[in-house]
């Protein structure tokens, strides 16, 4: 018998009930996508979600700014990079929302595309969603927003449309199933809640560890 057969047979011999009943119970549970207890803290209107997200994200060393329209993202990006003293070179994926921004308004900015290069200082991604309850952005890997953009640069900037800032994790999963198909996932889904940190030496929090030094979230109110 293979290890697989041996392990599964031993588990079966030790579980109560019949295998058929277990299969039915599992199918039911998986199909229901049932939410368990959801904390109240994230629930509320857009203003509540925005203020909670901002408080939590800034509380762990991230930064948040709001702009009115997608077109305003260009100025915000250029200004933040300049303020951080980083070279005017920005890497992003093939995402069409980001591609269609009026980049000509930041003439000094060099745009690079594709996955991150170790030499990149700054990258830009479009979040799939944001979660108020823990100040978290969710990013899906793929050509539009390569996952390496989230980890290799000094500064990672994330555009989050306010309409995608939801209360809790349970609000994200239906959006994900609608976008990917039930049970299907991108290769990598990153939930990011602040810049990289470590407390491995004497429990002292130091930023960054291996990932970005700064995480800047630009929330687009009108998108």
């Amino acid at each position, binding site marked *: 018998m*293979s*290890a697989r057969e041996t*392990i*599964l047979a*031993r*588990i079966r011999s*030790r*579980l*109560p009930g019949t*295998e058929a009943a*277990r*299969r039915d*119970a*599992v199918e039911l549970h*998986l199909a229901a996508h049932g*939410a*368990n*207890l959801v*904390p*109240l*803290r994230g629930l509320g209107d857009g203003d509540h979600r925005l203020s909670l997200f901002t408080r*939590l994200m800034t509380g*762990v060393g991230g930064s948040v700014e709001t702009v009115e329209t997608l077109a305003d993202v260009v100025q915000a990006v250029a200004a933040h990079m300049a303020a951080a003293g980083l070279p005017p070179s920005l890497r992003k*994926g093939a995402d069409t929302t980001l591609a269609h921004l009026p980049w000509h308004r930041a003439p000094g900015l060099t745009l690079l595309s*594709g*996955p991150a290069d170790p030499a990149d200082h700054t990258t830009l991604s479009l979040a799939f969603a944001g979660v108020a309850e*823990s100040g*978290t952005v969710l990013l899906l*890997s*793929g050509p539009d927003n*390569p996952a*390496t953009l*989230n*980890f290799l640069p000094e500064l990672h900037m994330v555009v989050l449309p306010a309409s995608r800032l939801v209360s*809790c*994790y*349970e609000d994200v*999963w239906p959006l994900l199933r609608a976008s990917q198909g039930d*049970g*299907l*996932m991108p*290769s*990598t*889904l*990153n*939930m*990011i*809640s602040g810049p*990289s*940190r*470590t*407390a*491995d*030496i*004497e*429990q002292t929090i*130091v930023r960054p*560890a*291996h*990932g970005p030094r700064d995480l800047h979230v630009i929330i687009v109110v009108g998108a």
Partner: protein
Amino acid sequence: MQPETARFKELSRAALANDQLQRSMVATGPQFVLKRAKARAALPEFDDLRNAARDIKNHVLAHLDVYLEKFEARVQAAGGHVHWAETAEEARAIILNICAAKKARLITKGKSMVSEEVGLNEALEGAGHTPVETDLGEYLIQIRNERPSHIIAPAVHLRREQIEADFRRVHTDLDPARDLSHIPALVEEARRVLRQNYLDADVGITGANFLVAGTGSAIIVTNEGNGDLTRLMPETHIVITSIEKIVPTLEDASTLLRVLARSATGQDISTYTTLMTGPRRAADPDGPEEFHIVLLDNGRSQVLGTEFQDMLRCIRCGACLNHCPVYQAVGGHAYGWVYPGPIGSVVTPALIGIENAANLPNASTFCGRCEDVCPVRIPLPRLLRHWREREFEQHLTPRTVRSGLGAWAFLAKRPKLYGLAMRLAARFLNWRGRAGRIASLPLARGWTRTRDLPAAQGKTFTELWRERQK
């Protein structure tokens, strides 16, 4: 890895005499407790979430065969490979095969307790590969050739000065005059040294905190981002994990994530929570081209259906270590194997046999704090007691303890004789005491050698009770 669990008492004595270790424990232990308490206070539903988390894991364990098959099918559908390993040896062989096929030289590793459990680094080195731990704490103990002393903070036993000395010893290509006198400088140096390893690695190996059956995703949580760079940069990513890490759905994973970080570090959520499902897709510009998951049993399935089953709910947050007076006194290395603290004392006998771990279930005062803080409500004191029963049944308990227990049982079954013996003992202990304390006592030198025994007041509880009833 050879267990040293038989040396628990000896290692504990050395730990208590180790000033550096004691300073570390005193400096960090209370911080963990405080951080968890603050996180709990900030979320009114926290204790109810622990019930929900317990129920999810119980549901999984009761349907584990089917969920494992579901998980496997989803991983395969996403283009990943699933390997089953009954023993540590099988797990090592599977991973060595993959690394040999990839002609791997440098192998980056994310933090994984299962990897420690199977002794993966020794095996990789033995086969000519170079494994490099990338979690800062794991990197520190790797360069010191030590074991993790804590489930989530592997280098919690070290002080800054020790780490500075290690970096100067190991990073010999850097300027010897550089300033490493503060912690951020040490972190910055580790970041620079390890960054090149991510880029050069042929294979990346991580563990998993959860496996989502409904989507075939392995979840890792880190604060550093090292696990992600370990997954994303090399051509091949291997996840080594164990069969009880399954959760059914993303909704269920959400509940467990809510209690994990709060219990572990007091964070609402770890900085990076990553759901990894198969290798990169055809159109993806980055991510691993090959993806393997190794599912380790190593004794876990034999725990199902026994009085020890509840231990399989563990999500490895480390809260029971942080709140354990024994762990806080002796640190993790005294436990002599991979998993220290209360959960280690419960898990280790199941994985390596009670005959090899008989000391550990006794490394508890049964104060119950571990159960009070467990995010999945594992009844740790009860499980420790079950192990003590097994220990007694298998005659692993020392002869003096057995004969003492035998004498007590003889009396306890004879109430009149028991009462008489207790009255005599209470009077003797009262006569023996000076100023309410006894400095030395025959048959109890193990206690009185290091501290006084409170003297008895002269009468037994039963006598006092009778007097009050009159």
